[in-house]
């Protein structure tokens, strides 16, 4: 028997947690990603550089959206239980009659919601960008990869917040695991263009699946 009322209440509470500071949690990541796209487009796009058969900004856009979605999911999820531990409000998560599955669904659901909102804002902004093809060739596949990418990092974030004892632990995973893996996963280049061992390593990077697949789903 699922406690739908409790699940809904915790989900809404978690959504309110990030929505209260939406400038920082939704608009800021989208704005940073747009700046990255702008800088890289100026650096590479003006030379007429073509990657995988499309101009550079159109190639980088889907991967950039995937990267932003995944980082937003991780940030939201990795703060959830950790804030409770540090502020001593963890009992608010543990005392209510919620099963581990319901707790997990509400936490992951809210993180995925934030990630998808950030992705939507970014996608909307990119759609207005002159000369970029923002409509994915396979919309359902693109949506699936966005949801799965967000889910992946939400669960990783929840695991991090369960394990972490201070914000430093959480930041370590963000800065030394999530950031490098996401930046080196082929957002700004095609993995097929790499040589030998680097290409094999990149194919083994779990973060590259959502990026490469989103690019494929959007551009193919």
């Amino acid at each position, binding site marked *: 028997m699922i406690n739908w009322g409790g699940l809904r209440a915790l989900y809404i509470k978690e959504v309110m947690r990030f929505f209260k500071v939406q400038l920082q949690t939704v608009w800021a990541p989208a704005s940073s990603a747009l700046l990255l796209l702008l800088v890289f487009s100026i650096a590479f796009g003006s030379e007429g550089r073509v990657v*995988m058969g499309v101009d550079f900004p159109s190639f980088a856009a889907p991967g950039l959206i995937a990267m932003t979605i995944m980082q937003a999911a991780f940030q939201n999820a990795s703060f959830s239980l950790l804030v409770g531990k540090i502020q001593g409000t963890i009992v608010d998560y543990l005392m209510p009659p919620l099963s581990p599955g319901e707790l997990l669904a509400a936490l992951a659901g809210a993180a995925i919601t934030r990630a998808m909102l950030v992705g939507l804002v970014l996608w909307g902004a990119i759609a207005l960008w002159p000369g970029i093809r923002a409509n994915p060739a396979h919309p359902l596949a693109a949506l*699936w990869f966005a949801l*799965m990418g967000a*889910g992946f990092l939400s669960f*990783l974030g929840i*695991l991090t917040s369960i394990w972490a004892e201070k914000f430093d632990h959480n930041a370590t995973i963000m800065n030394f695991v999530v950031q490098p893996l996401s930046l080196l996963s082929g957002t700004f280049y095609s993995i097929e263009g790499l040589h030998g061992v680097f290409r094999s390593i990149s194919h083994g990077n779990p973060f*590259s*699946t959502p990026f490469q697949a989103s690019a494929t789903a959007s551009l193919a």
Partner: protein
Amino acid sequence: MTDSNIAVGVVLLLGINVILAAACYIALRTGWKIKN
């Protein structure tokens, strides 16, 4: 011009999600690091 297979990506990501969700579930159920 594709550099990854969509079908493989769909299944692989689903697998990663299921494994991580299971790990989270087990950690929450046993109370690892959150229930002392």
